[in-house]
């Protein structure tokens, strides 16, 4: 009797294990033409760790896309009606984990991937996507180096890193009066920020600015005092930060502590459009220029989200009246590109979706989405904002600006 019970238990265990293992199956039900199905996208996101804030913003953007597409009844591809589902996994802000998670999605049959947050995790994920013949729409990996490796299956909706600083330099050249002559750069030492700095210094030299110094600080640091101390004696007209939020806040805070007052003002990537920037700095944030992938005045419309202002309203309705930041919008745009590509391909087959993405050429609430042969969206312009009375105001390009540049932005 006892042996029977043990034997039964062992058999049950084996059955349970067998049913749990070897589950390499496509999660979406087989959808016959004329039927309905679910398109599952996989996203490895930094929901904890150093970029948890930005990962959360990216997830919000993906969720807006899912809700809007599904509220419209889904979309049709090849005669089949699909609704959208997005699976999330936390990569803890680490690029090796991001790569592992994308691999796990492949094991589960999820071939279409939405990008993680940040260039490091995106670069790691892109290599795996290429190997597994998955397809990734990148929402937040801007480093040009990701696209210099000949990958054919990763497509970034956002403007590349080189345009983050160069757009601000161009805006200074076009709008600042008196026009600044000298610039000093403070760059975080991660790949994305260094690439952005390189793009900015090249543009500055091309436009006739004198670059006095380029100082590198540890990525994510809250102490940039050494760089500022070195720059102080050079008396630059503008201090340009190629940074993230923590370093961006530190530049303005510690410049005040150390009495470093550029004659024109500060310009920084990434940080200024995020509300935490103005909240942390208070009045000291006013006048700081920032580059932005998107603003509520970006030109272009699409059938799902309408224009940029419509998107802002949709987002606010879903998130308690909060206005979207560009990290939200770029995530939604990546998801939109995936949906449009599947529609165009008429299939969820990854090879067909890849070809459809490569040929995609469409306006959208995020601006034009069109990829070059490397998978970069080089047609979409960056916007430049300036913090005025605690709010980011689009000031460049002037055809989509809602305010004028206040210059000089600092007072001695």
């Amino acid at each position, binding site marked *: 009797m006892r042996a029977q019970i043990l034997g039964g238990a062992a058999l049950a265990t084996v059955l349970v294990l067998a049913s749990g293992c070897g589950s390499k199956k496509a999660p979406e039900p087989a959808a016959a033409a004329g039927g309905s199905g679910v398109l599952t996208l996989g996203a490895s996101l930094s929901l904890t760790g150093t970029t948890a*804030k930005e990962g*959360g913003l990216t997830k919000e953007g993906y969720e807006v896309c899912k809700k809007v597409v599904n509220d419209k009844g889904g979309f049709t591809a090849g005669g089949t009606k699909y609704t959208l589902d997005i699976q999330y996994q936390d990569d803890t802000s680490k690029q090796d984990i991001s790569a592992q998670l994308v691999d796990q999605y492949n094991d589960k049959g999820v071939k279409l991937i939405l990008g993680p947050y940040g260039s490091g995790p995106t670069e790691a994920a892109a290599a795996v996507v290429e190997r597994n013949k998955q397809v990734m729409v990148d929402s937040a990996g801007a480093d040009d180096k990701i696209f210099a490796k000949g990958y054919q299956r990763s497509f970034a909706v956002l403007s590349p890193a080189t345009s983050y600083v160069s757009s601000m330099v161009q805006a200074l050249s076009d709008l600042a009066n008196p026009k600044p002559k000298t610039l000093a750069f403070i760059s975080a030492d991660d790949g994305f920020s260094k690439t952005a700095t390189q793009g900015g210094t090249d543009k500055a030299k091309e436009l006739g600015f004198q670059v006095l110094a380029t100082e590198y*600080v*540890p990525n994510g640091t809250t102490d940039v*005092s050494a760089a500022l101390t070195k720059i102080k004696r050079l008396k630059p007209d503008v201090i340009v930060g190629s940074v993230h939020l923590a370093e961006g806040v*530190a530049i303005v805070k510690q410049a005040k*502590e150390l009495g470093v007052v550029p004659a024109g003002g500060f310009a920084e990537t990434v940080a200024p459009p995020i509300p*935490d920037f103005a909240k*942390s700095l208070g009045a000291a944030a006013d006048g700081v220029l920032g580059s932005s992938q998107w603003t509520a005045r970006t030109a272009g419309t699409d059938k799902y989200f309408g224009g940029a202002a419509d998107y802002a309203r949709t987002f606010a309705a879903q998130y308690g009246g909060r206005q979207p930041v560009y990290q939200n919008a770029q995530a939604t745009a990546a998801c939109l590109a995936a949906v449009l590509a599947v529609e165009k391909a008429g299939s969820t087959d990854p090879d067909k979706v890849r070809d459809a993405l490569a040929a995609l050429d469409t306006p959208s609430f995020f601006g034009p989405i069109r990829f070059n042969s490397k998978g970069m969206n080089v047609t979409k312009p960056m916007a430049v904002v300036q913090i005025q009375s605690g709010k980011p105001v689009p000031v460049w390009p002037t055809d989509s600006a809602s305010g004028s540049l206040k210059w000089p932005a600092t007072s001695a």
Partner: protein
Amino acid sequence: MTQFVQATLYGLLQGGLLALVAVGFSLVWGVMNVVNLAHGAFVLGGAYVALELHDALGLDPFVSMVPAAAVLFALGYLIQRYLVNLVVNAPIFITLILTFGLEMVLENLLRVWFTPDYQSIPTGYAQDSLRLPGDIRIPYGKLIAALLAVAVTVALVYFMRRTRTGLSILATGMDRGAARLMGVKARHVYALTFGIAAAMAGAAGAAEGAVRTFSPADARSFTLFSFVVAVLGGLGNMWGALYGGLVLGVVMSWGSQLLSGTMVNAVAFALLVVLLAVRPQGIAGKAFYASRVEV
């Protein structure tokens, strides 16, 4: 020359802040032989208490150091009494795992309660600075924090050397068996020590909130730098964390004048390696603490 003086002064101020963050970590390690990997989460706990008090009552973060310390004392006492005490006799590896797990739980609780947003506590004066000849600046926020670090260290030394409770903590740290024979309740003393350390971490967090941005993800870097400061300064001497913090602050400030980017962190750890090779007990530490036997 001005640049060098500015870097040195700024490094000293940063070092004072590092010392304030690390002094509790050093105390727990020295007395209880517990490397508390959750220390950084306690520092952040203090920062968030100060932030809440600022938002609700408009309290200045340096004033909030007192309530932040009180809240963290209670938390630290309870955690030690009912959690860490369960494994305090186990090998150090077990306490490392426990406090590592605790750090993960606390960090994620902070993330759930306060969101991963970057925060800072505005004061209106912390970024203003004292102007010395040669346009050398001493920011008030960091100056106050550094002076408080010295004051806290002096108070700790007084408490440890001049009060009955302090002496019983020291005695338990030196020889738990003998202290017990003299009537000291080791369990209570350990909880008290952990509570005091958490209180100092909470006070340091409130000060940090006034001079920098913070988010739950910063817990590990606070712990990491506390570790470096404690080892540099040496265990078993209440001045150790202050010396360690000041030396680390100045060396990193000088290092970042010569090197760029993340290489600066390499300077901090190179200093640690050199010191461990030359003087394993740290700047002010007592060799006894490395070789004591606990019963």
